[in-house]
């Protein structure tokens, strides 16, 4: 019974962690511009993240180490430093976008311009980090994140044409705006295959004191959680395809977000949207902040745990405090949050190989994962994901230039 509860809670947590401003924005944009045609990108990204999250959880449960911990050990400081700089910079931009998402939700709720909400939103994130435990962040915020299921209910109630939705699951070539189509696909993949997800998940396994007995539980949580997360993203795309695309409306500003749920739920749709965006972005902001602090502390061998008092791990507390300040400074400049989101998702895609290549080595190292090493199928999948990551790395910046507009 305890394990079933853990699995249920784990799936809920993973769903909460999956959906954030990047997946909402990229899915809404794809639906508005290309109707159901880009569902395949969410499905592909979802499959990739299922495998990576499962492997990150299995690695930590069996080895008792986090992925960054092992990268420093196995690949040395120079590779770690490279990974750290790349990942911290990209994560800071994504965090700034998530803080922007929280502020947009507050702007929609109050009518006060989002920039004014940056400091209160950043303070709220810091306060939860300062006073909360890992359980509060992991479970509390994620359970609230279930409000995002309103997108799924909305997508069901709007009765999309099933044949077209199913056709969208299969990759197809664009009929128009080719560069923009591929840029949208890359952004969706960047939003889905977020390194912060598997780095955070790996640290979470240690915080929750997983051991070899959790290998099966991990598999169910990773698969269930990421699948449900992908279903929510697909629902956002379906809603945008049903509401924006037929009218030829482009998704160009976050103020258009309520239009996704209001036609289905009426007055309450507005508030469901505000709650969904606010909570999803708050949850993601907490996870990304923790991920940067974990990465720093684990890489340098500091004391770390969200369950300890800040003064017992002053450098860890300083790391997340500084992270929030820097990200809030980016948000407060007033950069359009949607532009920042789409740009940071494309940048995430461009830097994926740095985070994913180590999996191939770590998941086959007997000294870490013993009999739980990857089989031929998992290795083939990781190689396929690495190949995809290299393609994304090469094409994302040119596509940003030629198709990002």
């Amino acid at each position, binding site marked *: 019974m305890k394990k079933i509860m853990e699995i249920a809670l784990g799936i809920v947590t993973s769903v909460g962690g999956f959906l954030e401003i990047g997946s909402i924005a990229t899915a809404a944009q794809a639906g508005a511009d290309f109707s159901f045609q880009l569902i395949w990108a969410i499905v592909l990204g979802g499959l990739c993240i299922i495998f990576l999250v499962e492997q990150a959880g299995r690695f930590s449960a069996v080895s*008792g*180490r986090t992925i960054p*911990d092992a990268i*420093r*050990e196995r690949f*040395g*400081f*120079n590779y*770690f*430093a490279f990974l750290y700089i790349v990942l911290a910079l990209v994560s800071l931009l994504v965090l700034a976008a998530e803080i922007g998402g929280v502020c947009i939700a507050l702007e929609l709720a109050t009518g006060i311009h989002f920039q004014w909400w940056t400091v209160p939103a950043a303070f709220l994130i810091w306060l939860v980090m*300062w*006073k909360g435990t890992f359980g509060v962040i992991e479970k509390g915020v994620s359970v609230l994140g279930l409000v995002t299921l309103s997108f799924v209910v909305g997508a069901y109630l709007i009765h999309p044409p099933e044949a077209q939705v199913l056709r969208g699951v299969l990759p197809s070539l664009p009929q128009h705006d080719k560069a923009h189509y591929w840029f949208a696909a890359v952004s969706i993949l960047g939003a889905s295959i977020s390194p912060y997800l598997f780095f955070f998940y790996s640290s979470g396994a240690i915080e929750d004191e997983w051991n070899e007995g959790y290998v099966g539980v991990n598999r169910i949580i990773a698969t269930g959680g990421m699948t449900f997360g992908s279903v929510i993203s697909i629902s956002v795309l379906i809603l945008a395809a049903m509401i924006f695309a037929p009218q030829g409306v482009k998704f160009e500003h976050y103020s258009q977000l309520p239009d996704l749920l209001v036609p289905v739920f009426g007055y309450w749709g507005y508030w469901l949207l505000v709650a969904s965006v606010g909570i999803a972005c708050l949850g993601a902001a907490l996870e990304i902040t923790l991920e940067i602090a974990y990465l720093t502390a684990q890489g*340098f*061998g*500091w*004391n*770390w745990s969200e369950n300890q*008092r*800040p*003064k017992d*791990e*002053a*450098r860890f*507390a*300083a790391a997340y405090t500084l992270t929030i300040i820097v990200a809030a400074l980016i948000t407060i400049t007033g950069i359009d949050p949607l532009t920042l989101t789409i740009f940071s998702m494309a940048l995430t895609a461009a830097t994926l190989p740095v985070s994913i290549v180590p999996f191939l080595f770590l998941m086959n190292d007997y*000294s870490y994962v013993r009999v739980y090493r990857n089989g031929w199928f998992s290795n083939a999948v990781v190689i396929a994901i690495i190949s995809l990551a290299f393609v994304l790395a090469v094409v994302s910046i040119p596509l940003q230039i030629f198709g990002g507009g």
Partner: protein
Amino acid sequence: MNLIRDCLDKQINDRLKRRMGRVDGIVLEVEPGRPPRVAYIELGVKTLMKRLSRRLGNAITHEPYRIAWGQIEVGLNEVRADVEAEKTPALEWELWLRKKVIGRIPGA
């Protein structure tokens, strides 16, 4: 033992099992006519920067902290040091931050 594989970059825990850093460097002593001897492990930004570039390392004046090889035990998952971390320079920054910044914020 393979020093690079089994010791370098491993987590160091003190005798109270407190995380105190990583093995940032290993110091060998070479005496004429004798084989090289592992003398210390090092922790510190200077050592880390030296691994990136000698010039970067030389730019940092703060000397690394050394623990004698005889005071450590290299395990499978960690390097155990027979010292008390809080009484060593390894936690200098941690203690400074605790005292001057983090500890002063309400709720710390």
